[in-house]
């Protein structure tokens, strides 16, 4: 047990030495792995940020209800009462047509146009603030309101959020496909690196087999190499993304000033970061394992 521990420690330090022996080649390999991983992971980070932003903006969905023209004040009071009693509605706000016209005049700068109107074309409206509901329940509420009389037009303002959600779903699929392809590339990179190492160490492997090395002993340094290269590659990807986010956040600053918002892109969470490292380490190990099982068996001492 103690000797196994020694052996593994020796192999790890030996592997690190080997990486340092060819610093240029090692760094290139690690950077290539980092770039390959940073593309899908970076896409994932961006999607996640867009999703967060969308959730912030769509936090309080509203339903706008426009009444039919010529609805009498009595009927408006009746509808207002009914709406207030509805269990799915938190509170409502009545926007009379005259107020709506005034708001239009002020907020859009169309005062000339509005002044030229002979009559107010706008309907009376209610803005409904629903109780906390899922998007499906919101749609049910909207459909319910549509069936009421005198309510001419019912508009659920969170519809755009659904469209965004559908787009995000599409984006996520694209990221998954990219991740799948580039994972394959990562395995291939490690596979080839290890293959070259095995070829250059052919003599050493033969001698080791002659003096009683088990296949496990011979395989071990190569597996560790793949493992460590994958781990470093994952760390490189994390750093590449961190650096990119830093630059993007700096360029977001003027936008934030204009909109008096404080939006900034967030990096991977701790859990996601650890998953990234674990995944890249596993892929490196897998590439090494495939390479070793392909090539080591063919080397027999003569």
């Amino acid at each position: 047990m103690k000797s196994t521990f020694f052996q593994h420690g020796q192999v790890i330090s030996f592997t690190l030495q080997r990486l340092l022996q060819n610093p240029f080649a090692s760094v290139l390999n690690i950077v290539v792995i980092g770039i390959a991983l940073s593309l899908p992971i970076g896409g994932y980070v961006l999607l996640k940020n867009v999703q967060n932003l969308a959730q912030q903006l769509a936090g309080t969905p509203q339903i706008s209800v426009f009444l039919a023209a010529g609805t009498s004040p009595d009927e408006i009071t009746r509808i207002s009462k009914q709406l207030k009693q509805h269990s799915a509605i938190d509170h409502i706000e009545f926007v009379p047509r005259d107020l709506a016209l005034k708001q239009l005049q002020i907020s859009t700068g169309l005062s000339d146009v509005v002044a030229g109107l002979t009559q107010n074309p706008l309907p009376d409206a209610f803005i409904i603030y629903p109780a906390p509901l899922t998007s499906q329940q919101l749609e049910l509420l909207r459909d319910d309101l549509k069936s009421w009389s005198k309510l001419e037009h019912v508009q659920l303002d969170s519809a755009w959020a659904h469209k965004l959600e559908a787009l995000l779903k599409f984006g996520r699929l694209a990221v998954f496909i990219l991740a799948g392809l580039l994972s394959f590339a990562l395995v291939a990179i490690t596979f080839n690196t290890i293959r070259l190492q095995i070829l250059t160490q052919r003599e050493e492997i033969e001698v080791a087999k002659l003096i009683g090395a088990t296949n496990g002993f011979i395989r071990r340094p190569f597996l560790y190499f793949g493992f460590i290269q994958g781990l470093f590659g994952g760390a490189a990807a994390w750093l590449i993304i961190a650096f990119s986010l830093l630059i993007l956040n700096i360029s977001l600053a003027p936008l934030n000033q204009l909109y008096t918002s404080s939006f900034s892109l967030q990096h991977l969470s701790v859990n996601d970061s650890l998953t990234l490292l674990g995944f890249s380490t596993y892929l490196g190990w897998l590439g090494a394992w495939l390479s070793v099982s392909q090539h080591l068996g063919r080397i027999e001492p003569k």
Partner: protein
Amino acid sequence: MIKFNQVYKRFPGGYEALKNLSFEIAEGEMVFLTGHSGAGKSTLLNLIAAIERPTTGSVLVKGQNIKSLKSAALPYLRRNLGLIFQDHKLLFDRSAFDNVMLPLQICGFDPRESAKRARAALDKVGLLKREKANPIALSGGEQQRLCIARAIVNRPTILLADEPTGNLDSEYSNEIMSIFHSFHQVGVTLLIATHDNSALQHLSGRALTLKHGELI
């Protein structure tokens, strides 16, 4: 310790390297294997180390049949053998000391204990002062002795040497033969392939002579 029973070795292409060999080597015996070059000496040693397998017949090493030995069991058989090669098979990417350490690392020895043993082995062949040298900087005789140090560091029970004095002048070869003699005295079983008949005169030991793959 080593037992050959009607062993034939035929290579692909039909060349018959060994024909109908039967002999036995007892524990602690020192045996010389002589014969002209191409007589099959190396092939015979390769059969014992399971580098080659016999075509027919059986080769028993410490009671294990080489022909039916599983490849997973091979390393453990070889750990009982000290192999000394004609071409040394040293690794030039590390020092003499690290070359001798390799068999101990393979067996998973404690590093400090290993270092002691490696130095003892180097001392035995007179190379302790050259432990830091790269094997490429060593003379032919020193390389051969380094190969011996690596073969004995694991304290094998059987030592197989293929032309250990092949390209060396008589002074060196006498030195190496006396090293072998000291192993013989501590009970190691030795099989030494050589075409150097002068060595046979110096040392007492049985001789097996091969001619065109047959014992005479």
